[in-house]
């Protein structure tokens, strides 16, 4: 709870700094703030009593447990990377800097609500905080046609999904008479299967979540929005936001619906299979790097759906580990991609041509990130995949796991397209400007990917 309050406070501070004309200090202050918030978050690990705020018990709204603290920790780290990169990314847009950064801070707030809600109203609020902020950010390049398109598309589709979600919540309320997860869970346990209203409601909520995490067949917005949005926003959507939606999805299924009923299970198996197949196959044909990562993100959503399916054995820590490795690898990749895009003016894979010769160290970082995304040991992405597959098999989802294994072989092909571009193509002689903060973010991400691959102990089995 404190974590959330401090983060919201940080957002206020950002706005105040705009008024006081302290834009130059914005990024350092935010990073410092996030470090403090991380510490606050760490302290709430041990203390998991009811949430008391201003003398009122808020436990029926927000519930701070190990699940939310762990995911918040990962999200805070991801946000810190994004802010570090924003310093150079928004260099030419200083007059909007505080707007953008404040919005990202509030997205972090929304994401924290999503990891710790215990009430469907809070869940809806969390989703809307994140989504509405993202609509703005996606369209934030006002003079860029594609950015406008991305913002508009995301807004239209996203608000439709929100309406579906709201409708689902209403039906759940109608059936169970409460917004509280605990009461919904006890209703689901006693009458769930017999109440059509409850089943339809839960189906609608699940569909809305599938839209938000870009699972097939609700994925069509994602490549266009990823491609059109400013690259840093794409990174944000692909990492922090995606993982927070998955955390919320998991929380809903585990504490709201008290496990997965057979209907939802069948639907999720089909959706996960389709997501893995479509995501990986369509990614093969992409030439735009951001679209490639959009489809790879869709494929990874398919794998993360396996963790949601494996609720029975408390697969939360598998989801956490996978989410963390996915965030590290994706941010590591974008930390290389963003400066390359701005130097070459291209966002296609051939922007990386010859990078292995021009900047061997940078190319090495991108290579390792790609290998981690592809799930090659000893990088953390491998253990993430292994962990999720293992949980899924333990829960009896053998066939779908075999499918996941096969599709992840396909995945290797398109991740290697990027590596091949760097090492085997000549490329133009454009000088690649590589600001220091990008390299620092990249190095930390890659180093963490390697470390987590070798010593997963800290994060694995945490929950």
């Amino acid at each position, binding site marked *: 709870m404190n974590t959330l309050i401090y983060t919201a406070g940080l957002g206020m501070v950002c706005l105040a700094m705009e008024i006081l004309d302290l834009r130059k200090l914005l990024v350092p202050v935010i990073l410092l703030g996030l470090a403090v918030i991380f510490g606050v978050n760490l302290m709430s690990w041990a203390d998991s009593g009811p949430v008391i705020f201003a003398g009122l018990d808020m436990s029926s709204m927000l519930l701070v447990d190990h699940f939310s603290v762990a995911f918040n920790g990962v999200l805070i780290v991801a946000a810190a990377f994004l802010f570090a990169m924003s310093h150079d990314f928004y260099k030419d847009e200083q007059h909007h800097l505080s707007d953008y950064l404040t919005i990202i801070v509030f997205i972090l707030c929304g994401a924290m609500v999503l990891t710790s809600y215990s009430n469907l109203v809070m869940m809806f609020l969390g989703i809307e905080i994140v989504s509405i902020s993202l609509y703005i950010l996606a369209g934030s390049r006002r003079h860029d046609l594609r950015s406008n398109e991305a913002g508009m598309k995301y807004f239209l589709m996203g608000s439709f999904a929100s309406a579906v979600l709201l409708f689902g919540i209403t039906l759940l309320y109608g059936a169970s008479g409460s917004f509280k997860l605990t009461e919904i869970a006890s209703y689901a346990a006693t009458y769930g299967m017999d109440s059509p209203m409850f089943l339809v409601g839960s189906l609608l909520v699940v569909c809305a979540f599938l839209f938000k995490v870009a699972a097939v067949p609700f994925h069509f917005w994602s490549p266009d929005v990823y491609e059109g949005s400013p690259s840093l926003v794409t990174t944000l959507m692909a990492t922090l936001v995606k993982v927070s939606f998955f955390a919320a999805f998991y929380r809903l299924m585990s504490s709201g619906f008290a496990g997965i009923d057979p209907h939802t299970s069948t639907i999720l198996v089909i959706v996960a299979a389709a997501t893995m197949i479509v995501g990986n196959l369509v990614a093969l044909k992409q030439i735009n790097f951001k679209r490639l990562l959009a489809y790879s993100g869709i494929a990874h959503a398919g794998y993360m759906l396996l963790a949601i399916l494996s609720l029975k054995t408390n697969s939360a820590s598998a989801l956490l580990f996978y989410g963390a490795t996915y965030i590290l690898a994706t941010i590591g990749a974008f930390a290389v991609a963003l400066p390359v895009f701005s130097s070459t003016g291209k966002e296609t894979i051939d922007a990386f041509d010859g990078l292995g010769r021009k900047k061997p160290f940078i190319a090495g970082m991108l290579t390792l990130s790609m*290998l981690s995304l592809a799930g*090659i*040991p*000893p990088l953390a992405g*491998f253990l993430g995949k*292994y*962990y999720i*597959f*293992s949980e899924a*098999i*333990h829960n009896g989802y*053998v066939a779908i*796991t*075999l499918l996941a*294994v*096969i599709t*992840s*072989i396909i995945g*290797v*092909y398109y991740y*290697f397209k990027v590596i*091949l571009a760097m*090492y*085997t193509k000549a490329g133009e002689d454009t000088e690649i400007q590589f600001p220091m903060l990008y390299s620092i973010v990249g190095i930390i991400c890659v180093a963490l990917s390697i470390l987590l691959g070798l010593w*997963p*102990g800290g994060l*694995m*089995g945490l929950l």
Partner: protein
Amino acid sequence: MMTILLLFLPLLAALVVLLGGSKHASSIALGLAVAELAVTAYAINVFQTEGPEAFYVFHTWIDSPKVSFHLGLDGLSLVMVILTNLLVPLIILSGFNRTIPNAKGYFSLILLMQFALVGVFMAMDGLLYYIFWEVALIPIYFIALRWGGHNRVAITLKFFIYTLAGSLLMLFGFIMLYWYNPEQSFDIRELYTMVISQENQSWLFWMFFLAFAIKIPIVPFHTWQADTYRESPTQGTMLLSGIMLKMGIYSLIRWLLPVLPLGVAKWGQLAMILCVIGIVYASIIALKQKNLKNLLAYSSVAHVGLIAAGIFALNIQGLQGSVVQMFAHGVNVVGLFFCADIIFNRTNTNEISELGGIRNLAPLFSTMFTIVVLGSIALPLTNGFIGEFLLLYGVYEYNVWLSVFAGLTIILGAAYMLRMFKKVMLGQPSSYVPEFPDLYWNEKIVLGVFVLIIFGMGIYPQPIFNLVEPVLQDILSHSIL
């Protein structure tokens, strides 16, 4: 402690070479690889006095799901580690006197590869083993990609995805084993003793067999191999053919037979037939090859086919033969590819029809090449003979007719090797070989060592038998129910 040193010295060496700069990269790499060889020699000494217990390393690595950092060095592992650590310095030495761009990266990757290979041979925990197995793929991919021939991009990608596909199926198999195991761990001792139903074993067999069959390669999973051997730089080809494919054979013995005995009982015969088909098929294809490296690649398929057949014979002769032949084949095939490289280095061609008459120009090279060829076609008193004899004997015990077909490998092998030798070395010098300087100093050392091993092992192979006999008996006792 020594196990750790044995494992991590190559990794350390790879880092040192990478940081050391390109100018002295090859010398530093050689020095460190020789140091690793010296550690291996000391390890053999310790092994003789204290036995395998001296090398036992066990640490918990991941609590949940339970994975341990469990290393061990029994006779079988020791033979493989000796092979690796003996070949790697020679492979590095073979790169002297050649211009290699960005040498530090090249030699660093070779040493990284050595690290992963030693890890594969010493890992006694399923997931740890799997990780080393995968890690071995990355350096060789980049070696072939950065320093390979013209068509390298498509061919190496095919190689990578093909072998990774097999590996991922194996990972799936390992996860299944983990959950079948009542203790829920990957530890090899538990995997050896756990009970799995026949039904489950029979499909798990394919998860593992495919991974190994692709790596070895057993026909029909061999299509990546000849192209990759041809397009890789020489040292890459040597690593691939000399050591990396032995990973697959070693894994058949170590992980497939004892862990899934019922699966082997059910499908072993089919696997055996595939191996024998592969022997004949690859030998016939080798007869028709026009490129020296391609010919050697297909001859390698035939030889390893026989080794794998000996394993599926499920008797002690076959297993002993396979280990001895693994060692012998590792030495011979690396020697042969080195000879091909020496020829290419001086003539810029590996097309057999364009070569000829080298013997008159380079008598020393010719003599050594002859000896390696004779070892490869299993002449008595060379290292190839002992292994092939035992393998054929093992297959004979299993089924007479299969051994007849498998025996064709010796006849056909002699046919294509000697025919190749005649065309390449004898006769009048062709226009492509106007001059052919005889061996340089490094080439003399490398080939000299190979010749010593070929005769040494051919005359007195007993030490290897002594090392592997108890391990193989133990594995056999788990494999036959």
